[in-house]
């Protein structure tokens, strides 16, 4: 080996600096690309006097050398407490059977009828894989399963994301198919029949849902991005909630007696009929999201959704977040969500005997579920989090939700708490 150049005692610092970088210029740490990004999160949801849920989720994502990406997600959702059974608040006591039909329970005058045998655990698993077809076209495909005591769901989806205008515009198309099987506790009740009669068939029901999503994401300028989605959802099959009833009243706020309508007598105020919903539903949802970053790196996010369906429900959702970027990776994020919906065409707070006769004669639809009635929801919350070196981060949020509608059943207040942590493995 010879000295390549004649030695001059001149400046060597630049060459030395380069050589030092060459010496150190290997990834000192394993790059994120070679690792799984793991997001773990735990949600606690608690309604005053009603449902409580604890929902741990773990999601692992990995980007491969060819820039394809795999997401795997496991959700466990454990519910306890009681939920509204669909019946009206009346000025006399009411009597119901439990979902299985084996037990009878009474609700006092003026109370929201809640069924307290509500206990369920859901386990959901999903996998999504996306890969590049070419530099601007990405394909995605996924499957998901969800299982609970009385419900099983399997779904698949496939779609394309197409980058245009130097990635300033992205068009997406996604098609999803889902098949659900419902096996109600105690059998499938006969719709519109009196609950005390316990007319049930020991069978299962099913439905299919087809979703189409068209998305358009647009970079407006250096600090503003916008997304517009149109989502068409077609559901057909059994959409009725087998555990929900509609109360028959005298029109003055007192529940009728089942025996007066030729039914079995199980107690006072027991004229409750099993609900019936249409066997198809077409939903259109338009979603618009804007994200704007201020000069100081704070981000304003505003989302608006309009939804309309052929059940007569129209809804507007406004969702606003302000991400307040602090020093050393800390951030605070206040959140406000406002939601308003109109009632479904077949929603009844309660039904009179003549109305029942008409509905029964034409095999029409009826539901007393407050979630299909008029509803106004307000959620406010605050999230705090910190981004740590090498991509780790944690966050925690606390939110309060208040629902209200035309009936007391719709008055639900809930606390949402969540903690999350991300790391690379």
């Amino acid at each position, binding site marked *: 080996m010879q000295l390549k150049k004649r030695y001059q*005692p001149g400046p060597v610092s630049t060459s030395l600096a380069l050589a030092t970088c060459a010496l150190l210029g290997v990834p000192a740490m394993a790059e994120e690309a070679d690792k799984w990004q793991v997001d773990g999160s735990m949600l606690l949801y608690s309604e005053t006097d009603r449902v409580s849920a604890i929902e741990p989720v773990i999601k692992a994502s990995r980007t491969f050398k060819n820039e394809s990406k795999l997401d795997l997600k496991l959700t466990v959702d454990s519910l306890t407490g009681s939920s509204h059974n669909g019946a009206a608040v009346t000025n006399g006591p009411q009597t119901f059977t439990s979902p299985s039909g084996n037990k009878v329970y009474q609700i006092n005058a003026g109370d929201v009828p809640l069924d307290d045998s509500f206990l369920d655990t859901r386990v959901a698993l999903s996998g999504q894989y996306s890969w590049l077809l070419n530099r601007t076209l990405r394909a995605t495909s996924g499957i998901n399963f969800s299982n609970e005591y009385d419900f099983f769901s399997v779904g698949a989806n496939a779609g394309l994301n197409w980058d245009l205008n130097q990635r300033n515009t992205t068009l997406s198309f996604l098609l999803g198919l889902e098949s659900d099987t419902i096996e109600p506790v105690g059998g499938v009740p006969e719709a519109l029949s009196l609950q005390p009669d316990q007319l049930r068939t020991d069978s299962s029901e099913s439905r299919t849902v087809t979703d189409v999503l068209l998305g358009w994401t647009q970079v407006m300028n250096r600090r503003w991005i916008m997304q517009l989605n149109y989502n068409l959802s077609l559901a057909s099959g059994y959409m009725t909630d087998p555990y929900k009833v509609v109360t028959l009243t005298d029109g003055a706020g007192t529940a009728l007696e089942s025996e007066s309508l030729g039914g079995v007598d199980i107690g006072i105020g027991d004229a409750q009929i099993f609900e019936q919903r249409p066997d198809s539903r077409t939903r259109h949802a338009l979603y618009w999201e804007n994200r704007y970053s201020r000069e100081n790196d704070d981000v304003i996010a505003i989302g608006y959704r309009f939804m309309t369906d052929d059940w007569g429900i129209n809804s507007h959702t406004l969702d606003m977040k302000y991400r307040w970027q602090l020093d050393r*990776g800390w951030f605070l994020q206040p959140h406000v969500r406002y939601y308003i919906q109109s009632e479904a065409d077949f929603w009844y707070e309660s039904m009179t005997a003549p109305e029942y006769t008409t509905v029964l004669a034409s095999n029409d639809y009826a539901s007393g579920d407050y979630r299909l009635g008029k509803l106004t929801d307000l959620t406010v919350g605050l999230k705090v989090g910190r981004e740590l070196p090498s991509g780790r981060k944690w966050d925690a949020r606390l939110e309060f939700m208040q629902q209200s509608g035309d009936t007391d059943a719709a008055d639900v207040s809930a606390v949402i708490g969540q903690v999350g942590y991300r790391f690379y493995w």
Partner: protein
Amino acid sequence: MAGETRLTRTSDGWLGRFTAMASPCEVQLRDVSRSTAEQVLKRVAGEAWRVEQRFSRYRDDNIVAALQRANGEWLAVDEEFERLLAYADTCWQLSGGRFDVTSGVLRRVWRFDGSDRVPSADQVAALLPLIGWDRVERRPGQIRLPAGMELDLGGIGKEYAVDRALLLAREHTDADLLLNFGGDLVADGKTPWQIGIENLQQNGVAGQIPLARGAVATSGDSRRFLLRDGKRYSHILDPRTGWPVQGGPHSVTVAAARCTEAGMLATLALLQGAGAEPFLRAQGVRYWCLWE
């Protein structure tokens, strides 16, 4: 290799200590939790011990020892060792042969213990055939060291460990931090650290400089020399002659972006002897020389 680490609280953060490469080592951190400080300390100490274990010439279970045992045969080397060799090669080129990782054999006759045992010219001349980076053959993934020659990465190892440790520490925290391995140090953060520099004191200047980001390394040792017939022999040996460099400073401290770079500039300056200061001035870096 494992050792002990100790973490203590300071007025504005944490101080971690351990021993590696025969030097006291320190990690200083501001504004982090105890658990983060512990993680960083563990990682930094682990890296220091790893580098020491891998490249120390005082061990018989590493690549350096294996190379001696290869006795003139080709030996497969890993990618990290190859990078260090490439760096040593660059330094040899840049110094006109003054920096040479094969010059360690001179220690057989030179022992700088303050005595007057200066070797004879013949003793030194007898070793010269065993010195010369240009006699080392390299090909991708392999190296061949002529029999009898030795390799000593001591002039790079400690500073390299400092730089590596910083990169690894950054995996755990983005807080202000200072790594100090026996005087070779690197700082990275927003608020400056006060760095004491031995050499500054003798000028009557404050012995501290503020350093927020960057590295400082020192080469040379004023306590190691030989004295004979009123002539002082410094421990800086010119591998081309086998004799000490004359007329240079005892030690040189340099500030640069990275510790390896600072350490090498200091070493190269010492090897210039009397030309040390002009050399350092030409590099456009901050430096401190300690003369007699």
